[in-house]
C-alpha cells in the first residue's frame, strides 16, 4: 500500500502570528516555523498502516526552500520519502490554488490513500482536503476520528457535532483526520538520524504541468480585503460561590446560554 501525507509548515503555534500589511498574507519568516501539529495525527495513522501492512509512506509539502527542516521533521517519524513542490509562482496561493498544486503532485504519483490533517493551525480553512478530492474525482472522507483499511475498502468515522457517521468507500481515497483519532507518538533518535538520507523529490510547477497562472496570489479565488488584530480579551463572567449552592446553578445557566451544554 502507498500512503501520502501532505504536511504544512506553519508559524509556531505558541508564537504570535504576523500578517504582512502590503501582501495581506501571513509573514512566514516572522518567527519560528514548525510542522503543523495537526499533521502529527495524520502521520501517526500512516505510521500505524506502515507497521500493520508495510505501507510505504511519502510526505508531500508545498513550500519554499526553507521548508526542508519541516520535511525532515515529518520524515523523522520513520516515513519513507518526501516530495516537495516549490515554485515562486505558488506564493500567495489561497486554499484552492494550494489544492490545485497538491492535486497535480498526487496525479503524478501512485497512491492508495492520502491522509490530511483536518485543518492547519494557521489559516484554518479546512478547505484543502475536500478540494483535492474534488479535483482528483476521488472519494472524500473528511473529519475522520477513526479509520480502517481492509483490502481496497476504507471505513472512517466522520466526526460532527452530534457524534459521528460511519462512511465507507473504496480506495484510492482522500482522508482528513481530527485530533481525536489517535495519540501521536514521539519520533525517535533513529528516525531523526535516518531522515536526512530519505529521498526528497523536488518538483516545480512545470514538472507537474501546472499552469503558473492558475495558482498564486494573482489567481486566488479568495481575496483578502482587510485584517485586524484580535480584540483584547473581554473581562470574563465571574460566578461567585456564596456557600448557598446557587453558584452551580448560575454556572449551569451560563453554560446553557453559551450553548456549551
Amino acid at each position, binding site marked *: 500500500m502507498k500512503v501520502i501525507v501532505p504536511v504544512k509548515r506553519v508559524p509556531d503555534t505558541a508564537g504570535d502570528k504576523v500578517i504582512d500589511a502590503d501582501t495581506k498574507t501571513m509573514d512566514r519568516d516572522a518567527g519560528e516555523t514548525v510542522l503543523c501539529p495537526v499533521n502529527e495525527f495524520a502521520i501517526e495513522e500512516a505510521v500505524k498502516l506502515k507497521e500493520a501492512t508495510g505501507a510505504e509512506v511519502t510526505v508531500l509539502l508545498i513550500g519554499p526552500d526553507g521548508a526542508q*527542516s519541516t520535511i*525532515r*521533521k515529518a520524515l*523523522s517519524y520513520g516515513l519513507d520519502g518526501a516530495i516537495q513542490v516549490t515554485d515562486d509562482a505558488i506564493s500567495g496561493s489561497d486554499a484552492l490554488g494550494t489544492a490545485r498544486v497538491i492535486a497535480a503532485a498526487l496525479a503524478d504519483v501512485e497512491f492508495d490513500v492520502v491522509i490530511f490533517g483536518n485543518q492547519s493551525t494557521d489559516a484554518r480553512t479546512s478547505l484543502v482536503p475536500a478540494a483535492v478530492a474534488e479535483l482528483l474525482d476521488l472519494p472524500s472522507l473528511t473529519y475522520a476520528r477513526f479509520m480502517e483499511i481492509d483490502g481496497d475498502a476504507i471505513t472512517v468515522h466522520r466526526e460532527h457535532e452530534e457524534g459521528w457517521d460511519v462512511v465507507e468507500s473504496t480506495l484510492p481515497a482522500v482522508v482528513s483526520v481530527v485530533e481525536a483519532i489517535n495519540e501521536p*507518538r*514521539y*519520533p*525517535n*533518535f*533513529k528516525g*531523526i*538520524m535516518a*531522515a*536526512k538520507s530519505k529521498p526528497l523529490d523536488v518538483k516545480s510547477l512545470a514538472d507537474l504541468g501546472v499552469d503558473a497562472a492558475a495558482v498564486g496570489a494573482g489567481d486566488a479565488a479568495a481575496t483578502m480585503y482587510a485584517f485586524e488584530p484580535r480584540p483584547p480579551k473581554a473581562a470574563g463572567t465571574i460566578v461567585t460561590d456564596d456557600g448557598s449552592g446557587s453558584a452551580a446553578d448560575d454556572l449551569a445557566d451560563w453554560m446553557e446560554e453559551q450553548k456549551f451544554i
Partner: protein
Amino acid sequence: MALSFILTDEQEEFRGLVKRFADEVIAPRADELNAEGVFPVDIVQQMGELGLFAIPFAEADGGMGADLTTLCLAIEEIGRVDQSLGITLEAAVGLGATPIAEYGTDEQKLQWLGDLLTGQRVAGFGLTEPGGGSDVVGATRTTAEVDGDHWVVNGSKVFITNAGTDITSVVTVLARTGEDADGRPELTSIVVPADTPGFSVAPKYRKVGWHASDTREVILDDVRVPLANTLGERGEGFRQFLATLDDGRIAISALAVGLIQGCIDECTRYANEREAFGTPIGSNQAIAFKIADMEVAAHTARLATHEAAWRRDNGLDYKRQACIAKLYSSEAAVSAAREAAQVFGGYGFMTEYRVGRFYQDAKILEIGEGTSEVQRMLIARDLGVGTS
C-alpha cells in the same frame, strides 16, 4: 575535527525532541514521583522508545552509533526537569550498559545488551562499599572465589544506582579475586544477574534528593555465577572502572548543566511574575543578578561539558577536562540551586517547586562518580603537583 560550538541539525532536532518529551511527559509527573519516591518504569521505557539508552553504542550492538556529546544533550534536557530521571539515564548508560559494551564478549552482549539499549531493562555498576568509595582499591572487601566453573561472590556494595528496580537485569560488581605479586589486590568485574540466588538489595535509602531514582545497598551472599560472567580479563577491574568513571564524569557534568538551566528557566519566569513592594521581584538588581550569575554558570559549565565530550568523541586525551567539567558544573549547580531557592522565597523551601527539589538534588552532584576533592586531587596530580 575543528572545534565547533554549533550542534549538527540532527543534534538540534534530537535536543528539541528530548526537551519536548521532558516538558510533556516527565515534568507534569516529577513532583509526584519524587514525593512518593517512585521509580517510574513506564517513563524509563518510553525514554527507551525515543532511543535514549542506545545513543553512544555501536550500531552492530543495537546502538544508535552516536557519541557522548549527543548523550550529554539528552541528559541535560531530562535533568532540566527532573534530576532523578537524568541520573537514571546517566547510570543506566554509563555504569550499566557501557562496561558490558566496552569489555563484554559477543555472548555477553547478546545476553544482556539488547534489553538495556532499548530501555526495557536497566543495569548497575557496584564499586562503592561500606568502607569507602573514593579509595576503591583500598576499600573493596567483596571477594570472588573460583569454585569449579563458577565464581562465588561474597560481600556488599552501598549506594548502587538502578540496582533494585523492577526492571534491573544485572549489576556488575567489582570484587577482589586475589593479590598481585606486590601484594596489591587483584580486582575483577563480574556480571551478576539480579535474579541470582544470594543477590539481594536492602530497602530504599532515605535520601536527601534523587527521590525517584533507585539507589540500593546490594548484598552478595554466596552468589554463584558462571566464570563466563567475568567482564574482560580477570584482574582488569581497576583499569575498567577508571575508564568508566572518566566518561561518567562528563555525563554527570551534563546533568548538573540541566539543573542550572532548570533553575534559570524557573527563576526567570518567577522573577517576572512575583511582586513585592509593587514591582516584580526581578526588577531588583539583587534578584536579577542572581539569575545572571546562573546563566554565566550554565554557559560555562555547558562549554566545559561539551569540550570534554568532544575531546573524548574525537579520540583526544580528556581525563583532566572531564574532571574540570564535573568539578565546575557540580559546584556551580549547588550554588545555582541555593540561589534559585532564595529567589522563590518560602516556596523555594517547598519540594513541590522544582527549585526546592533541585536544592535537594544538587548536593549529590559534588559527591557521586568522584567527589570534588577527588576531582581536585586528579587535576593536581595531572599537573604534576606534589609528585617530586
